């Protein structure tokens, strides 16, 4: 539980952080809330030789609404999403999902940009952003680019983010119909064994911990669009997926949970 030795740099700005990433290359990792990275370092599953601390970039902590879009700074803490009156009005689903991440200590440290960049398929917020059809803004040495959440995740803890890029902002549509998030776990603080996010009255459905990335349940979405009932749409939730097998759940049980939770989420989101 003692991490390997590492150097530590404090970024003064996003530009500075990106310059430090460019300088140190693959050996460097951004440190935001640290509640995923540091445990991995303590188990020596991650051994970055340099940590670039972006946790003090308070300019990237904001929630703004306008033109039908909610723009959220990447360093915004989960607890800030959870308690934001503005977000509760503009995108209550995101506020509600943020309140279910980990425990209060995790939510006071963890950041929205950090959890997306970490790309853990078992995390709550990446799936919520995916169901919402969100956009991720990444800044690199050559400037900023916008990446659709649907194109962002590529594998276990992997995304299209380049080694010298950092997420600066996350955008989700404001408003937009019935929603629900079903998180199934054994202890309040745990990752979801399976989770289901439904946004836009069933037009956006995503699954947590059912594969190597947060997964858009396009079969469910198509069924809903085609007028299927919640039960009918949920029946295809696990089709074609290869969910993981671990101490909490084998693949068969995960598939079952995905169907049960999808039906519950669709019902709660107003899909009959």
């Amino acid at each position, binding site marked *: *539980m003692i991490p390997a030795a590492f150097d530590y740099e404090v970024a003064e700005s996003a530009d500075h952080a990106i310059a430090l990433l460019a300088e140190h290359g693959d050996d460097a990792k951004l440190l935001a809330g640290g509640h995923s990275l540091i445990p991995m370092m303590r*188990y020596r599953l991650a051994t970055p030789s340099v940590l670039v601390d972006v946790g003090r970039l308070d300019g990237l902590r904001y929630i703004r609404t306008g033109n039908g879009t909610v723009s959220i700074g990447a360093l915004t803490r989960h607890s800030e999403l959870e308690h934001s009156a503005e977000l509760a009005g503009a995108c209550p689903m995101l506020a509600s999902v943020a309140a279910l991440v980990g*425990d209060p200590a995790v939510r006071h440290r963890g950041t929205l940009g950090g959890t997306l960049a970490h790309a853990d398929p078992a995390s709550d917020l990446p799936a919520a952003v995916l169901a919402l059809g969100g956009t991720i803004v990444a800044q690199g040495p050559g400037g900023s680019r916008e990446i659709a959440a649907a194109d962002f995740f590529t594998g276990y803890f992997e995304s299209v983010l380049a080694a010298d890029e950092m997420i600066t902002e996350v955008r989700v549509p404001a408003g937009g119909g019935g929603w629900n998030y079903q998180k*199934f776990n*054994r202890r*309040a603080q745990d*990752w979801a*064994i399976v989770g289901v996010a439904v946004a836009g009255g069933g037009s956006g459905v995503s699954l947590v911990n059912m594969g190597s990335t947060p997964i858009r349940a396009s079969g469910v979405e198509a069924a809903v669009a085609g007028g299927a009932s919640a039960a009918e749409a949920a029946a295809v939730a696990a089709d074609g997926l290869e969910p993981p097998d671990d101490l*909490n759940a*084998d693949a068969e049980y995960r598939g079952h949970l995905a169907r049960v939770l999808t039906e519950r989420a669709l019902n709660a989101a107003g899909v009959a």
Partner: protein
Amino acid sequence: MTVTEEAPGHVGSRRLRKEDPALLTGEAKFIDDLALPGAIWVGVVRSTEAHAHIVGIDGSAALAIDGVNEVLSGEDLAPLWGEGALPCAWPVTPDMKSPAHLPVARGTAKYVGDAVAVVLADSRYAAADGAAAVVVDYEPLPAVVEIEDAVADGAPLVHADLDSNECYTWGLWGDNAPAIDAAFAEAAHVVSERYLQQRLIPAPMEPRGCAAVPSPAGGELTLYSATQIPHILKVMTAVVLGIGENKLRVVAPSVGGGFGCKLNVYAEEILCSALAMQRGAPVRWTEGRAEAAVSTIQGRGQVQHIELAADADGKVTAVRVKLLADMGAYLQLVTPGVPLLGGFLYHGCYDIPNYMFECTSVFTNRTPTDAYRGAGRPEATYAVERAMDSLAVSVGVSPEEIRARNFIGADAFPYESAAGLIFDSGDYQAVLDKAVALADVDGRRAEQAQRRASGSSKRIGVGFSSYVEMCGLAPSRVLASLDYGAGGWEAATVRISPTCKVQVVTGSTPHGQGHETCWSMIVADQLGVDPDDVEVLHSDTAVSPTGLDTYGSRSLAVGGTAVYMATEKVIDKARAIAAHQLEASEDDLEFSGGVFRVRGTPDAEVPLAGIAFAAFTAHDLPDGMEPNLEAHVTYDPPNFTFPNGTHIAVVEVDTDTGNVDLVDYVAVDDCGVQINPLVVEGQVHGGILQGAAQALYEDAVYNSDGQLVSANLADYLVPSAAEAPRFRLDSHATPSPTNPMGVKGVGEAGTIAAAPAVINAVVDALRDLGVTDVDMPASPQTVWKAIADAQGGAS
């Protein structure tokens, strides 16, 4: 006659714990907080194989790390202890197999976590880097992982020098076998069940750690350790290393919980002590959390077979139990004895005339097991309480009715059990009745029926657990009959200073229980002083040289009684001085509220403070009396104590997901007289959650290669406050006649009772679906599959 106002008693009040300010503000010093400049840090290289020859150890990469100074193998270290082995103090049978157990293995590693080499470094960080960099070349050997596999034909041997994996077989039936066979032959109902007690990881808040510090003046060593047992550790360390006991001091600083796992003598304690003496420098080690999962003992680990024979009315006539118990790869301090502590209690709180218990204990290639909160008694309670529910179904009566038909009656005490114990006191039916009312069992059953009728996927289940346990370990002669390697007494010294402040020295060694608060309250009431004027010293063999430490819910019933008796002795001496001063007969004096008075003589009185000062100056004491007010008592209890109770769990099971919600939990306990109900409730709350954790969450899962796959707290599910049920507690005290305060003990009661209550509730919720058993932990997947199996295949 003067009417005097009695000071209100402290005993029985919810006094806040005097230990807490230091703990809550971070002032308390734990082992890793000790500043020891110049200390050598030990990093332990642990086997990654369950069973393997150690072919080679390459420390070159470790030695290249800045701050890493030495890499030592078991061969290198052997001269420190020779053939001297880590001690097992409980050889339960004369022919028990006890393998040599070195602090660092030589030749063969026998479980994942077995120490195979050590790194000596300048810092904890360098020690960790060094330990990670040591390359060990293993030649894997076949491993025995599961309990039943250990006794299968052709099983690989955990210890090649022993001719089998069977450690011992211990039985308790005397000449009763024909009567038991007859009872089963004549029974109207026979219940035969097999239950699994999964292994558990104790996971106290503070992992282990130790620091051995040689005296600069030479020849003496102080061993600091996060231990429950500084006194036993001192004796054992002296014996193992051949140090004069007078040259060794053991100190347990603030200790962050133990639950039994710190009731031991561990490799690292011996290693650090031996190295500190060899090097003449402090040597220290702090355990990591992931390391603790494999290097500290684990609990439970049994396969239980229990049979009940009953007549047509459900009156049980015999109980027959066969256990297989997992010792792990080696025997730690009391490993072999843990199943025996349950072995007397498989008849539960029922009047059962015929009793047979047999335990075969086996070696496996896994971390050693040993005492874990309840130690044998949770296992026994689980088996009998689950089986009683099966019997209730067979007879066609409710769980409370089957219990009522079999309880030991309130008028039967002292009750001699078929297993040979003398139960002290209790009113089991009154306790159960109270719990039934508090839990609104009738209302819950109506809700259960309504939900079933409506086809709801949210099923309600009500589960009972009536338990009796034995604590107050223990009469030394009884321990002798069980071949335990020590006595069961406890020591206390009480001193009153010239200014009437009180110093209590106890041989009990708290690590979270609240001894300082409770001992102060007892003594304050006896002496008529303020509890804050009572100082309680403990856990340092230089301050408290005599003691047998804290485990098995023994502290209050034995250690607290010793404190009470020592205080009485001090009062007796003070009375003699008071009589001398007042020129009265001792028989005419009464003592209350801290004042001696002559009965019937209004103004003839002297306060304890005056006596204390007179005893100190010694100017005018009775002829021949020694100065000062001080007394020492070593109390050897005449019997165990037998706390009991009934717990009722109410669960809601989601049949769609298998999820179990613990929606209500009622506990009515008889732990005898309560010194501080706040402390009692804390013990019961934590105990219930720890028992519910076995029922629903915790499982030390090994794969077929003997790798622990639930080795961190993300995979090993210790529940938090968020998972705690609503606790609703009550009590029904029948004072124990065994000791003067009438106390019994409560440290393990919740853990002993909770697991069967929860699982009985889960099974009750699902019985109409055909579910008759659910293994622990009843995870959502396990419950869902149990439902699917009962319904004839996956849904």
